Structure formats: C-alpha cells, structure tokens
C-alpha cells in the first residue's frame, strides 16, 4: 500500500506505463485490504456467542417468527456462502439494512461518520497545533522545568480515563462555568435550521451562513474535541520531543550553530523540518484512531458517531452495520496512509529522488 503514482522523465509512454502499474498495484492492495478486513470481521462476528436472530426479533418472538428470520438471514447456509452473498451485494453498492436503526447501512454511515469526522478533525487540529510546539519546547529545554511540565501534562493525558476526564470537563466547563454547551451536537432550538449537505454541522452552517447555528455547534464540539485533542496532544508532544531530541543531536545541527545560524531557525527550520517526516505518520495514526470513533467520549458527550454505532452494532450482532463500519475504518486508514505517503514525498527530498 502507499505507492503513489508519479511521473518521471522517461517519456510519455513510459510514464503512463509506470503510472498504470502503480495504480494497478494500489487498487489491488486496497481491494485485498478490504477483503481481508471484511473476512476477519465476518468470522469474528460469527464466532462471538451471540445469536444474530435475537437482534432482529427480540427475546419474545414465537419460534415460528424466529425460524423465519433465521432462514431469511441465510444463517442455515455455510459460512463461506453467507460471506459470498454479502460480498456480491456489497460489490453492487448494497451494504444491507441495519437491524438497530432500520436504515440502509450506507444511510447510517453517511449520518454518523461526519459527526466523527468533525470531532476527530478538530481534535487532531487541537492536538497538533498544541502538541508539536510543546514537544519542540520540551526537547529544546530538555531536563528543565518546561520539559517536566510537558511530560507531566502528557502523562496525565495518557493515563487518566477519558470518561472520567470527560465528565469532569463537563462538570467544570459546562455545569459550573457555563463556558461551553452540554452534550449533543446542537441545542434543540437550533435543530432543523440547517439543511444537512455534508453532515458536518460546522461546515453546513457556515456554507448556509447560519452563524447562530455555527456558534452553537462550535460550543458543543469545543469540549469533546478539546478532550480528544488533549489525548492526541499528549501523544504528539511526546513523539515530537523524542524526534526532536534525535534531530538536535545530529551533526548538521552543530554545523548550523557553528555557521552562526539563529537558534530559532535551527530548531524550527532545520530540526523540526527533518523531524516532520516521522511526525506525519504519528499525526496521521492519531487522526485515524480518532476517526475510528471513540466510544467513551461519544457516550459521555452523547455524540452520535461511528464509535457508538459500531459498538452498539457489534453487541447486537448487527452484521451489516459492523461490516459497513469496518469498511469505513479501512478506507480511513488507506486514505490516511496514502496522504502520509504524499506528504513524505513533499517533505523528504530523498523520497522524491528515489522515484
């Protein structure tokens, strides 16, 4: 995975051939990744000791109703046949209907994924904007008070249970100080004002110039995003510190200092630029983790995102929904990996040269 098609200087035909080959390899890798993901999820779902018919009919259905649904779901057929049937449908774009929401899975995902995307994006932005400078500062002032503070802040972010922090944050910033709005994506009085286009309330409200809705949505997202951002900040700042320490010990830094380059330029222009290459992977992975949906944060903040959706579906053996959600997560990882590769390409001249 992660081969980015590029044009080299070997003539138009050669370039086209290289491009096609790279594209073919990319598509094959993605297809295999998805197939593997679906197969593993399918098997796990069938291995867990939960009767999938229960999700459809509940505990009180008559044996006749139970039997009818059992057959309708194809559960009497061998596992590989069931999987093949699912694949055939999925290839035509039919991911089935979720038992729990009565909607086509694709409709559900179009609703829950933007909620997670919005939260994760702001969280990652928060984590990166604060985490990178903090990591740099900690590395530059290694062993001093700043370094210790950053490390303690990171440690707390890493070790405190997120649901507890979430509740405390709600208690302080929502209930006591009244700085932010409470759980949910919008206050009820702002519901139905904006027509959902992208599903990202902030973006939709801005596009439709509903600034009241935008402000309300922002006040709702601020706390959970800051909380998730704090977690990614803890991770990103620690990794930045470690990458920067590594870079600052390199000979080119000594050379730069000998040349009399300003210290800020050495740190931000040279060391950080080189540390940025592995840092991109760290940020991308942190973003991908948030995009999977964080169940506990979503539960505490009543955020209707992907994490809650998949967890609920998994607990109820709602196979179609679980598989649909898995595909989305797979796509997120593939997408972010490709993006990291593209950024590598921009950040590291050696990668460009190799191509």
């Amino acid at each position: 995975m992660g081969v980015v098609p590029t044009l080299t200087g070997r003539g138009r035909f050669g370039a086209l051939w290289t491009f096609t080959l790279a594209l073919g390899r990319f598509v094959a890798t993605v297809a295999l990744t998805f197939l593997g993901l679906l197969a593993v999820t399918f098997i796990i779902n069938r291995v867990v000791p939960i009767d999938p018919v229960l999700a459809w009919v509940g505990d009180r259905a008559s044996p006749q109703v139970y039997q009818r649904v059992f057959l309708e779901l194809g559960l009497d057929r061998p596992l590989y046949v069931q999987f093949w049937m699912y694949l055939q449908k999925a290839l035509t774009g039919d991911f089935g209907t979720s038992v729990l929401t009565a909607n086509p899975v694709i409709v559900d995902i179009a609703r829950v994924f933007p909620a997670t995307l919005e939260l994760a994006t702001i969280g990652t932005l928060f984590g990166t904007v604060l985490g990178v400078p903090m990591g740099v500062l900690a590395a530059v002032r290694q062993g001093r008070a700043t370094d210790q503070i950053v490390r303690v802040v990171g440690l707390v972010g890493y070790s405190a249970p997120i649901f507890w922090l979430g509740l405390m944050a709600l208690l302080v910033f929502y209930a006591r100080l009244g700085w932010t709005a409470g759980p949910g994506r919008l206050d009820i009085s702002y519901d139905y004002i904006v027509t959902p286009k992208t599903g990202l309330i902030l973006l939709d409200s801005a596009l439709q110039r509903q600034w009241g809705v935008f402000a309300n949505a922002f006040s709702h997202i601020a706390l959970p995003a800051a909380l998730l951002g704090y977690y990614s900040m803890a991770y990103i700042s620690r990794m930045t510190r470690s990458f920067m320490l590594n870079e600052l010990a390199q000979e080119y830094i000594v050379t730069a200092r000998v040349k009399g380059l300003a210290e800020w330029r050495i740190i931000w222009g040279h060391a950080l630029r080189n540390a940025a290459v592995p840092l991109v992977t760290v940020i991308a992975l942190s973003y991908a983790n948030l995009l999977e949906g964080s169940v506990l944060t979503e539960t505490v903040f009543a955020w209707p995102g992907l994490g809650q959706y998949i967890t609920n579906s998994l607990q109820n053996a709602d196979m179609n929904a679980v598989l649909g959600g898995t595909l989305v997560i797979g796509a997120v990882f593939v997408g972010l990996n490709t993006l990291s590769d593209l950024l590598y390409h921009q950040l590291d001249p050696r990668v460009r040269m190799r191509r």
Partner: protein
Amino acid sequence: MNPILRLVAAAALALMPVVAPTTVSAETPKDTLVQAWAIDDIISLDPAEIFEFTAAEIAGNSYDRLIGYDVNDVSKIFGVIAESWTLSDDGKTLSFTIKQGRKFASGNPITAADAVFSLQRAVILDKSPAFILTQFGLSKDNVKDKIRQTGDYSFDFEMDNTYAPTFVLYCMTATVASVVDQKLVMEHEADGDLGYNWLKTNYAGSGPFTIKDWRANEVVVMERNPNYWGPAPAMARAIYRHLPEPATQRLLLEKGDIDVARKLGPEEIKAVSANPDVKIMKGVKGSIYYLGLNQKNENLAKPQVRQALKYLVDYSTIAETILDGTVIVHQAFLPRGFLGALEETPFALDVDKAKALLAEAGLENGFSVTMDTRNTPDITGIAQAIQQTFALAGITLEIIPGDGKQTLTKYRARNHDIYIGRWGPDYQDPHTNADTFARNPDNSDDAKSKPLAWRNAWDIPEMTKQADAAVLERDAAKRAEMYLAIQKEHQMTSPFVIMFQEIEVAALRKNVNGYVIGPSFDDNRFTGVTKD
C-alpha cells in the same frame, strides 16, 4: 510568562469569544418537553413490530389503540378507538363498534376498515409481537376471515376458543393493536409489504403526538397532532434525547437543559433529590427480577435446593442498598397491580434454614454453580450480593459476566446453571406472565414453544393445565383465585427465585407538571404535561 502557559492562555482567549455567547442554554423552551433516556433499543416505529421499551412508550403517546385502561386502576377498561363491544353467545366472537368523526394526523377519517387493516396487517407481517393476536387462533391464512369488517364503523373479531373476555380486551390494549392509517400506509406499500419498510421509520397514527423524526442513537422528535380528537397537549414538541450516561443526564437536568431524566442510577437519584429545582417521581412497573435455576443441573433440580436458594438471597438489603429506591421486594410471578397478583413475601435471608434444606438434599457441604450475569451495574450488583449470601451456606457461586445478548443467547439454549433475569409483561393480563413462568407444554429440546419454564427445563404438565384453564375462565373473581393458587404453588416449588418488582424513577425539573408514569412499559404519558 512560561511559553506553554502563554500558548494555552492564547488558545483559551481565542476560543472564548466564540464559545461564551452561545452557552446561554439555561432552560428548554416552554412548549417543549425534553427527556433524556437511552433510546438505542428502538429498532422500528411500526406498531406491528414495536416490542422495545422506548418505541412502545413512543407509540403509546402517538398511536391510539382499540381499547385502553386507567393507568391508576388497570381494572377499568374503556374504548379508545372502539366505542363499544359485545361478546357473541358462543363466547368466540367480539363485535366492535368504532367511534365516528375521528381523524388520523394525516386528516384521513378513522373507520372500521383501518382497525381491521391494522389487526390483519400485524398478523400477516408476523413480527415479534404478533403472537399477542395469533394466540387467539389467527394466522396469515385465516385472518381475513376471522377479522372481518361488518360495516363502515363495525367489525368482528373471531377466536378459536372461549377465552376470558378480559384477556382478549387487555391484548387489544397492547401496542400491536394500535390503529394505523390504512390509506397513508398503503400509499407507501412496496412489493406487497403492507407499507412495512416505510412505517418502520415513519408515522401513520392518530394519537396526541406525531413522530416527526427518529435519528437512531440520537433523538426522537414528536410534535403535537393538530387533528387529535382529545384535548390538545400543552407541549408543541416532545423530544427524547439519547443520553446513555446517567452522570451526564444528571448534569443536564440540574443545568436545565433537559426536563426529565429517565435513566438515573440510585446514586444520581440520591444526589438530585437534594436539588430544590428537581423533583422525583416514582411508579411501580411490571418488570420483575428473578433467578432462573436450570433443572438440567442435577443439584438445582432437587426441590430442597430450589427452596434453599430462596432463603439465601438478602432481598431487603439489596432493595435498600444496591437498587436503592428502584425496586420493591416481590416474590410471585404476577407483578403487583395485575389481576390475582400474590403479594405475600415468605422468603427472607435465613442461612440456617437453607443449610438444613441443603443437608436434607444431601449437600451439607454445599456445591459449586455458575451464574450468567448481564454486565450492567444493577444486575452485577445483585449477583455479587447473592454470591456472598450463597457462600454463607457453602455454595460457591461463579459469576460469568457477559453482554446482554450474549447471556441471553446462552439462556435461550438452556446452557446456563443460573441466569439472573428481568422480565416485563407484554400486556396487562395475568396470562402474559403465567404463560411463560407457569406453562411448559413440551419440555423436549426441540419444543415448539419455549417459555421461561422451558428455558429452565422445568417440566410441569399439571401447572400447565391449571394455567390453560385460568385463561379460559370468564368469571374475573374466579380467575383471580385460580392465578393466586398457581402462584402460591409456584412460589414454593418453582426453579424461579423471584426477588423484586421494578419501580421506575424519573427526575423532573420542578416546573414540569402532569407527567404520568403508568404501570406498563408503554404507559408513561406526557399528553397532559404543562410547564410553569
């Protein structure tokens, strides 16, 4: 200033102007009722399929059924869509007359055709609650003959036996007997599905509220029905918000962002009780907590052991501490409030008596046994308390925690030793619980009917006959006596350690009046809610 602090302060300052002005969400609008609950159990909004707590309550506030009952005295039955009814001389046919001049929310008139269509549709679709109607001998093949329209405002409902009239009428109070708008539903029919795929997420009723929107795991929005025949609700909107976390519900309630918190634990209830802006409402519900002892386990199959275990639960302490204020001790399969409910509670923690019974069974040194336990705080708490009291008599109880569906799957397959369960009646007639706790027509592994008695492998041909006789008894007083007798025997001999009856507790903002917590899970009403 330290650069980090400077950075944090700058970020906070940058956020403040955007955040601060928008946070003045002090209270909910005067004409809107906002309830916080866990609404992730909703899988359908079609009354022919609804069988879950939340959806049933929503249907109770948005659909009219043929018959209703007084939530304060369930013995008082009255017509809602039905004007009147008569029983034929042979006792097998009920003839209903429909009230005239009423409309659905769509504006379509309500006629007998709608009532007939709704009942027939529920039988033909054959979803989970269909058995409430099919138990009268109805099936896909005969329902069009058995439920037949006899006029614009009248129809007949023919049964296969002479059931107790109250039994039939209580079944007509269930969600599955809601009357749906035939014209509207059939406009959305696709591939002969009787509008099923449409009604799953839409609305076609005549109740005080309409269902405007359901976003799974997020919100249900209901609006006042402008065509409602009764007094118009004071609330223009009623909203259920999905807030599964009790601590979050408490915060929102105290802040005034919700009007009613429906899922508070004992700790939160105690905490909000001290808040002068909050009031607590309680109502006894039909759900009961019980232990099911699998008779396939040779120790549990001994009558003395079954009885010994009933003396090894500290009922009052669990009710007063772990489930503080959310249950009452109750030890019979019919919940209080039902016809013929037995209210005696003969069992209390008595280790000596239990030891004597175990010795009588040849188990003076105790034994080891497992208990499949749903991993919710209340059920886990009860299980741990029972583990301790069982140990006092030398019984080693291993708790096997699991997700709800996981433990249920095991229970349904009779693979458990002890199962700790909660059971709510499906309708208001005693047969609903007698049918499952005291009937087991076939105890074989491949039995057609698999009630709770079957799940615990309890073979009871005699008691099954008694329960069958009780459902046919047309004299209500005599019928009550029959159920009392069954319960007395059941209480002493059954492999069910029935422990508690649920009390539903809701915490409301002080300015909310007229909220009703009814006896059944679909009886909580907010039609009469007003706000000061």
